[in-house]
């Protein structure tokens, strides 16, 4: 059982001219420092932890990030709204569709655009498929880090099925850049609908197999139960959201609390747990995958017919070729949107839209200045706040628990660093 944190509480800071390291007493000379990362197969992507260890017990952890910083927010000030979606793909790259949906929902909120029902349903379906994909990888990685390789492979096989659906839909498995302002780039074809229906039929069996492997597995439970406990108050105060917060007892799910897209039309449950440890986060993600599948099943059967783009009079999404060649509004819209300093107008205002991404609350705070690119495109990354919670979760646990906790938080460095 982990030792109570109060026994080891002391400050560990990197030395800095303005904030010198706190004086350490003689009795703490036995502690040694281990550098965990940034190049390490078990730190999911490039992040760094400077661990202070007493034998195998972690006394303190200093997380460091920034190894993958690529200036996404600066790019957001120079790329247009439809170009920037390619950059959002590369943030939480495990579920790029969810980032695309989040970005364009934020842009459309700023511009005051209301999507067509078909587009809303399509975006909901792909966002939920992205959620299933993300949770499969997250739980798969937790399993892999604690040694369960078969579980990981089962998860990855199902992700391949989802990738195949996305490839049939828009031609790209991975960095899809699927959404556009006021619509999506490709409509659902009958083949896509059929593949989604097949996935809905075959996925529950795999999920049951995966659960049979790990959920009541003595080794897995011993490694994750009671490890990395996050209390409800610490979760809310620390800005945790998504499965990390829900596993600590915070019943907040933006799909229910602030319904966006078509979520208000579907019946699904918010999955919460009370324990706040790694095991609870694993269970919450497993159950969330079932709920997401329910949403996809309901949505695909009730997909409204109609246009996926909003009307061409609104001059925000490219009209279809038929409209361009046969109607004057289509021609005008096409030219206006393709020319450099014409195109859609954005109000000189600021707005924020938070969506329930698989990792938590992914939101974009966009400042518009009337031009076709944002003045400021801020991404609120859930992984940043979860990573900042890491030291308090790991104090008192052993070195082997570091991987379990890090995996259960699902920190994606590309979203963390942007």
């Amino acid at each position, binding site marked *: 059982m982990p030792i109570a944190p109060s026994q080891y509480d002391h400050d560990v800071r990197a030395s*800095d001219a303005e904030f010198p390291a706190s004086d350490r007493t003689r009795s703490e000379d036995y502690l040694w420092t281990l550098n965990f990362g940034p190049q390490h197969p078990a730190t999911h992507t490039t992040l760094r932890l400077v661990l202070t260890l007493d034998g195998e017990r972690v006394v303190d952890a200093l997380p460091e990030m920034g190894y993958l910083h690529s*200036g996404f927010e600066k790019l957001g000030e120079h790329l247009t709204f439809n170009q920037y979606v390619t950059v959002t793909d590369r943030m939480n790259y495990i579920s790029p569709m969810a980032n695309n949906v989040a970005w364009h929902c934020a842009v459309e909120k700023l511009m005051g655009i209301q999507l067509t029902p078909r587009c809303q349903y399509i975006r909901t379906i792909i966002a939920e498929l992205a959620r299933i994909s993300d949770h499969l990888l997250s739980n798969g990685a937790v399993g892999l880090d604690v040694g369960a390789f078969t579980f990981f492979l089962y998860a990855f096989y199902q992700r391949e099925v989802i990738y195949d659906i996305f490839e049939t839909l828009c031609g790209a498995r991975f960095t899809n850049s699927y959404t556009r302002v006021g619509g999506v780039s490709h409509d659902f074809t009958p083949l896509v609908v059929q593949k989604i229906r097949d996935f809905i039929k075959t996925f529950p069996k795999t999920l049951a197999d995966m659960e049979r492997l790990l959920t009541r597995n003595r080794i897995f439970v011993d490694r994750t139960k009671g490890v990395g406990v996050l209390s409800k108050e610490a979760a809310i105060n620390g*800005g945790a959201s998504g499965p990390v917060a829900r596993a600590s007892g915070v019943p907040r799910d933006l799909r*229910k*609390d602030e319904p966006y897209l078509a979520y208000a039309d579907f019946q699904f449950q918010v999955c919460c747990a009370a324990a706040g440890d790694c095991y609870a986060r694993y269970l919450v993600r497993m159950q969330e995958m079932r709920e997401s599948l329910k949403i996809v099943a309901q949505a695909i059967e009730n997909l409204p017919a109609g246009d996926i783009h909003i009307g061409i009079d609104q001059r925000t999404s490219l009209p279809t070729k038929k409209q361009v060649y046969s109607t004057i509004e289509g021609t005008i819209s096409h030219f206006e949107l393709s020319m450099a300093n014409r195109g859609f107008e954005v109000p000189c205002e600021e707005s924020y839209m938070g969506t329930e991404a698989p990792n938590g609350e992914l*939101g974009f*705070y966009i400042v518009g200045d009337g031009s076709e690119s944002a003045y400021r495109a801020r991404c609120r990354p859930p992984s940043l706040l979860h990573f900042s919670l890491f030291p308090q979760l790991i104090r008192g646990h052993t070195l082997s628990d570091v991987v379990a906790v890090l995996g259960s938080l699902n920190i994606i460095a590309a979203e963390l660093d942007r």
Partner: protein
Amino acid sequence: MPISIPMPSTPPLTADTSDILRFLTERFGALETSLFRDQTRIVVPESKSLEVLAFLKDSGFDMLVDLTCVDYLEYRDALRRYGLVYLLASTLTNQRLTLRVFVDDPVMNPHAVLSDGPEAADKPMPTVRSAVPLWAAANWLEREVWDLFGVRFLGHPDLRRLVMPDAFTAHPLRKDYPLQGRGERHNFPVLTRDDG
């Protein structure tokens, strides 16, 4: 089997923040408020920002969703250079509130008063009081604003760079820093095995 524990149901969506605005104006005087796309925004001067944030936290805004900054150097009709944005949310009542604190800078306004407090008079950076005592989430978010914009937070326990390398000297998300950078990537010192 997944655990099923009865959780309290979330209250229905209420974007109505008129109560909280009334309490705020009673307590702090008239505040500049606006409503845009169902978001309530209030602008608070730096001298009152920490008190207003503490009041909001006690009124139920227990979650700091985001703390970010906008550099208004190239924005038309902008009066002050930096706008700090605090996005607050309440997990209990499901309300959201956006708080903005505008801070100035000599680049935009040569007669700028960098901070209303006497203790920050000798600091060359625009300064705001830190919200870390209220929300732990503010810790890394303020570090990021310091790193990328150069807005200093008084009272922050550990104000270091977060995203950029420690040896970096500029504040890259400012509008006067070019997109391609100033050549820092080509000037990294090359370390050999003998140096380390």
